């Protein structure tokens, strides 16, 4: 018992010592103004992302890209004279760690907002905490429909196209261009797979065969075998990139030929072909959809801008769609800050985002309003041809309910001359 006591006493000392430090640091973060994380010269925002661990692949590049875009904006004087600091916390895609790091960001670092927190199971766990502490929870990086609950979580906004909307758009393409084919489905065994399938079946009716996989079992041989035996001609995948490659590779291995139609989540060609290595030609003909410019489209002015930022502020990291994504998030956040005006408050930025009307790099509409907190509401189809992934046709928009899939015909905008959204 005496030793337990000494251990406890040691905690007290350590805790007391660290609490001294943390008082200092929190004083620095919130000093001056009454709005947490905002001073006359700085804005502090934070995020949680998997930087290490099995889920880190691809995702670990997003937040540094966002940060690089902020550095770019800071170098030009920041937003309303304030420089943006972006604190990136590694949660390893473990919801328990997310709890810890988000509390650290909010309670200790006193961030102004949480931006682009990644992952459905991870971010779901902190919704209530962020709501209680009235922290704006902007542009969550996942296609779950949970972010769109303005009544329950007034400060939470999504970014990605939700999986059901995407499923409907992909399925209506299949219905139009591949009529009468036997359509099957394989998806991840969680809300991603379920919501996606729901969208597909809204358009096509029940699929001929469906299979699921779990990330902890990287062998999709049995599933692909079953789809082959069912005589599937079109396979729709709701898979993460690794499992897209695995599915393509496994199908080829067992001599199963079908048209693959893949969710944007797992259809980034550079990621897939890296994993396929020499077998990269298997991705030829792959159909998917997206809403942000393709990283390989050098003619696109947004890509030119992002490549410049990447070279100057991101250590010239290997340029792919994750970087395009990260920088687009940064752009949208700067737009929101501009719209919120000089007197930046938490209520102010939420009101500004709800007002909506943001025009940016995407070819799909952002639907933000007081009633709608979901992210992008449409996508345009892509196809891999000659080893390049490119858009074709027109963008479509729809909702996650029974609304029709309709063409979206707004003009694409070009980025402002200096690459920084102007004050509205």
């Amino acid at each position, binding site marked *: 018992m005496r030793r337990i006591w000494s251990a406890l006493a040691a905690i007290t000392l350590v805790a007391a010592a660290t609490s001294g430090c943390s008082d200092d640091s929190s004083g620095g973060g919130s000093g001056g103004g009454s709005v947490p994380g905002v001073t006359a010269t700085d804005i502090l925002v934070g995020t949680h992302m998997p*930087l*290490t*661990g*099995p889920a*880190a*692949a*691809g995702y*670990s*590049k997003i937040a540094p890209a966002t940060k690089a875009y902020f550095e770019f904006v800071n170098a030009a004087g920041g937003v309303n004279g304030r420089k943006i600091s972006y604190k990136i916390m590694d949660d390893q895609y473990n919801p328990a760690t997310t709890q810890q790091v988000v509390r650290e960001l909010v309670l200790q670092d006193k961030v102004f907002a949480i931006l682009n927190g990644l992952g459905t199971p991870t971010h779901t766990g902190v919704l209530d905490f962020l709501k209680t502490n009235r922290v704006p929870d902007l542009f969550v990086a996942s296609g779950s429909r949970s972010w769109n609950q303005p009544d329950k979580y007034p400060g939470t906004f999504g970014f990605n196209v939700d999986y059901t909307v995407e499923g409907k758009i992909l399925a209506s393409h299949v219905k139009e261009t591949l009529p009468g084919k036997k359509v099957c489905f394989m998806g991840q*065994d969680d809300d991603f797979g379920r919501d996606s399938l729901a969208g597909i079946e809204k358009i096509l009716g029940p699929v001929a065969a469906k299979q*699921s*996989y*779990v990330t*902890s*079992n*990287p*062998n*999709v*041989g*049995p*599933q692909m*075998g*079953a789809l082959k*035996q069912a005589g599937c001609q079109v396979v729709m995948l709701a898979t993460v*990139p*690794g*499992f897209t*490659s*695995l599915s393509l*590779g496994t199908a*080829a*291995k*067992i*001599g*199963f030929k079908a048209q693959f139609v893949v969710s944007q989540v797992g259809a980034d060609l550079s*990621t897939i072909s*890296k*994993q*396929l*290595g*020499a*077998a990269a030609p298997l991705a030829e003909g792959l159909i998917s959809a997206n809403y942000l410019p393709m990283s390989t489209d050098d003619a696109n002015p947004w890509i030119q801008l992002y490549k410049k930022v990447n070279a100057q502020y991101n250590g010239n990291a290997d340029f792919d769609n994750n970087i395009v994504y990260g920088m687009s998030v940064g752009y949208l956040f700067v737009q929101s800050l501009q719209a919120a005006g000089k007197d930046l408050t938490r209520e102010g930025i939420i009101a500004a985002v709800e007002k909506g009307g943001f025009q940016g790099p995407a070819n799909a509409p952002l639907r933000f309003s007081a009633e709608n907190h979901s992210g992008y509401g449409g996508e345009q189809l892509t196809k891999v041809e000659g080893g390049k992934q490119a858009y074709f046709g027109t963008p479509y928009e729809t909702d996650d309910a029974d609304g029709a899939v309709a063409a979206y015909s707004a003009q694409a905008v070009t980025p402002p001359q200096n690459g920084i959204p102007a004050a509205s």
Partner: protein
Amino acid sequence: MDRFVFLTFDGLGRGAVYAAFALALVLIWRATRIVNFAQGAMAVATAYVGYSVANATGSYWLGFVVAIAGGLLLGAAVERVVMRFVDHSSPLNGVVVALGLVLVIQGVLGMIYGNEFRPAGAPFSRDAFEVGGIALLSRFDLFVFAAVFAVVALLAILFTRTNVGLRMRASAFAPDVSRLLGVNVGGMLTLGWALAAAVGSMAGMLVIPTELGLHPNAMDIVFVSSFTAAVVGGLDSPVGAVAGGLMVGLLLSYVSGYLGATVAPIAVLVLLVVVLLGRPAGLFSRSAARAV
């Protein structure tokens, strides 16, 4: 029936790899009575090196040899630099040090190569031969079988027919007596680690091309399956490791195929419970003790 045949071959292909990796675990266990929890991370590290060499020189086989040689070196280094100084009065100290090494290796690999998947090519086609419309085995699967068989055969010869093998077994079973008889017990331990790590590295080179690619965590799941395989077969028995590996591979394939991928871990748990309740030291515990 077609489906059953397909799943059987699919499972055997996976199982062969688990068997190779389980073999590496068995080797270290027999030599040092430690379950090497760092085996997976060590294999990934050497696979990274192997593929770096393969990509730089354009020769897969050079990379393959470098990875295995790297395994020998890394195994010896881990034993000489770290494991030798672990206090073995509690068996858990070795486990914790190994887990610490896992974190170090994964962190260092992440720093050098990044946490992205990197392509890991295979030396042979992975397209399966079809017989009567059923895809059976690919050239690569045959290569895996051949490699695993070769390792089992070589190890059997080493331990039963050579002087070094005899000394290694002696130092593992009776270190004090062996020392008195003039055996370099420390050297044998180093050799045991080196050999085991080399086998682990080979298993890594065999399994990584069939999965998601090179990644610091690439062997985590393989480690769990292979450890299960080694336990099912009996940690003292190389034959058990091979049998256990094939059993786990088949089970995972059948369950994923007939019941769904989500149920697979439950099936593995059931297999372990059934086997261990019948034979608490694995299927091949007693017969192996007699045979060796």
